[in-house]
């Protein structure tokens, strides 16, 4: 039976997963260079062994207030269109192998930003894992289609 491995992580207590083949590495990092005037979803830039990596704040992408980057954050570095980009997450989970049969399209009740970024859901034993579209998650040009506007994120940041 065809199956796929997912690297999992949590954002706002929700479990997400991306195809493990897309994940380059996972690391905790704290020194981000802020990018003024960039979309709020751009958390900052950091130096990964001489390479400058954009860190995308998944919280903002999901329509939540932006992350406080003065404390170390967890980076899931994924490769999107031959470019490495970091997704900032709350907590890192395990790599799990899931049968393709357990895959379900996103539920209709899923709204806004979640719906935009999710390709499907997996029912695990005790919880639900949302499979993330890494490309969309890393795309900061699309306005966040959520009620939590970017203004809120900006307020949270400057506070």
């Amino acid at each position, binding site marked *: 039976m065809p199956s796929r491995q997912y690297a999992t992580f949590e954002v706002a207590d929700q479990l997400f997963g991306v195809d493990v083949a897309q994940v380059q590495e996972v690391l905790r990092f704290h*020194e981000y*260079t*802020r*990018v*003024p*005037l*960039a*979309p709020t979803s*751009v958390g900052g*830039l*950091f*130096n990964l062994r*001489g*390479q*400058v990596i*954009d860190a995308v704040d998944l919280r903002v992408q999901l329509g939540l207030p932006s992350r406080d980057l003065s404390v170390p954050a967890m980076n899931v570095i994924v490769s999107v269109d031959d*470019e490495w*980009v970091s997704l900032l997450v709350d907590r890192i989970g395990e790599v799990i192998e899931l049968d393709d049969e357990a895959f379900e399209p996103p539920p209709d009740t899923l709204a806004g930003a979640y719906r935009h970024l999710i390709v499907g859901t997996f029912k695990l034993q005790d919880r639900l894992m949302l499979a993330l579209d890494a490309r969309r998650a890393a*795309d*900061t*040009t699309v306005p966040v289609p959520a009620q939590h506007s970017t203004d809120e994120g900006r307020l949270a940041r*400057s506070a």
Partner: protein
Amino acid sequence: MDELGDIIQEFLVESHENLDQLDRDLVALEQDPGSREMLSSIFRTIHTIKGTSGFLAFHRLETLTHAGESLLSRLRDGAQNLNPQSADALLAMVDTVRRLLSSIEENGNEGDVDVDPVIAQVAACIEDPAAPRPGPAKAAEAPAAPAAGSAPAPAPAADEPAGAGTATPAAGAAEAVAAAAPAEPATSVAKVLAKAAPAEPAHPEETSVHAKRSIADSSIRVDVDLLDSLMRLVGELVLTRNQIVRGVNEISDPALARTAQRLNLITSELQESVMKTRMQPIEHIWSKLPRVVRDLSGSLGKQVKLAMEGKETELDRSLLEAVKDPLTHLVRNAVDHGVETPEERVANGKPAQGTLTLRAYHEGGHVIVEITDDGAGIDVERVAQTALERGVVSRDQLARMDSREVIALVFQPGFSTAKKVTNVSGRGVGMDVVKTNIEQIGGTVDVDSTLGSGTTWRLTIPLTLAIIQALTVECGDERYAIQQVGVDELVFVDGQSGQTIEHVSGAPVYRLRGKLLPLVRLDETLGLPVRNSDRDVYIAVLQADGRRFGLVVDRVLNTEEIVVKPLSGRMKDVGVYAGSTIVGDGKVALILDIAALARRAHLAAEAVERAQIDLPGTRAQDSRIERLLIAGIGERRVAIPLDMVTRLEEFPVERIERVGSREVVQYRDHILPVVRLASLLGCYDVEEGETVPAVVYTERGRSVALVVQQIVDIVEDHIEARSDLDDDGLTGSAVIQQRVTELLDVRRAILAADPRFYTEMPETMVGA
């Protein structure tokens, strides 16, 4: 098949190189038609191409080069001399060979390039009917070959009637001239050129041909991608070195310090060596220019000699590529607009032949390329007129520009002073594109011109794109890098000595040596929390988009070499960053795109320009809003621009002391020179009270006091009805608040108090 592909690849690379050399040789040959050595070299090149193309079964290429070879062998053997039409035929052949090669490169075959007209043209140049006919075995030229027999007659290959060609001497492209040439040799471009430099004995190209060949034996070809990745790795190494050196300095371990020192040196040397591998002499792009100048000056009926200095100057190959088009454009422009026609030149007492000089040299980590002509120079008046007509500037703006600034208007989009639009330049595109292209690679363009004696265009180009000199500054706890090439100077606004950032209609400005410098606050522009004090900040005076402005930052850190990292798409979209880099401590810093920043801040340009009028020494023609301090002196009312008022003070009369012929007052631990406006303006019957009001003006630590009788008012008024009565110490008068008010020439008044006020400015530079 792959092996054959490699051979073809090799053949193409080699042929392209040889053709570049050939172009130069042919033009040089025209100036010294007798040079056997040059002819032999050309012959060899064509022969090589012919041989290889035969082997690779490129038949058209073979036939064409064979035809050229036939002509060349006659020239080489002295059977006939090189005349203009054979030179044109040979150049046309070279061009066709090039077209064939491009077709082979793109499609792997000779495509639909038509070689027959050129073969006919070449054949027509062979004077001896008994000469071996080009490509006798090929049926294709059978009809063309007999043409060689009727050599003295106009070439049958001419596309247009020979009559039309002769009627328009030297008009049109080289081919047209070539076709008409037999009947009208005197007007030929080549002839002009040949006449132009008959005495030139040695040809440097000649020696370089041989030098080049021997170099070829000791060199290898390396894929550019490999060099790029090598460069990237060295970049990383430089950064790592920086971090190590910094780290070691914190640990006091002599042995480790020595090792770090050594690492430091080796890294620098390695960096230099790797950079060198990517370096190519500027000659690579210059080699095409003699041909450009030859063809262009010919078609314009001009005589231009091209001189080159410093062609061995090396540049990173990617930069070389980027400079090629702008350079060609500037050269074409110099021939088209710069150099006058021979008649004009002679009438102006110049030699009929103009000289265009290309000069390249290193200067302070940059390569400077100068294009100098000894032509007519740029007419400032005409530039100003045209700029007005095209709406590039307003009359107001123009009035405040010095001639240099006016000339710089030619870089504005949509500007062209060509009297008539030619097919060469004057289409209104060009200089602005040149400027944009050069700025894109972190360079600058400027122009110097003296009417009647010539123009110099100067390109300042960084040595390499990957590593640049940058100024690092701090703003809102983050570091930013600015390309050093755009930084004119640094100014520290010392709060202690009363220097401040001022505001004109809400726009921040700084008084830099008497001129208002528009400011851009970095924190504000980037949307960072704005600092609440303007004391003790730094201003980086920058040049971008043809404008000068000051960037206000918290601190200036240092200048260092940085490795430029390209931005991801999402960062580019922000629009104010040119790249990023990793600084000494390993943190990422953004490189600011100065021009974009200036645009974003809008620079409040108009407000500042309005304010510029208020400066002493500049006088406006039009009415405008001014903020003025009105002072009373006897019955007279005198207006002082508010910008020239730093503070208002009352001084007790008895504290004004005399030192020699001048008056001073002790003020805040300083001795302040004083001038009484009453005596300056010649009203002596002024009564004084116990104290006198004074206007104190301070500029970078120097102050003067202008004593008046009373401060009447501060007005913001629409000033008109200004009469230009140039009374001593006044710039004129105006009706303000229904009363005639004299406008004080503040600069004069200041100089009356302190003659050295403007000349002795304290040092403001801290670097740059």
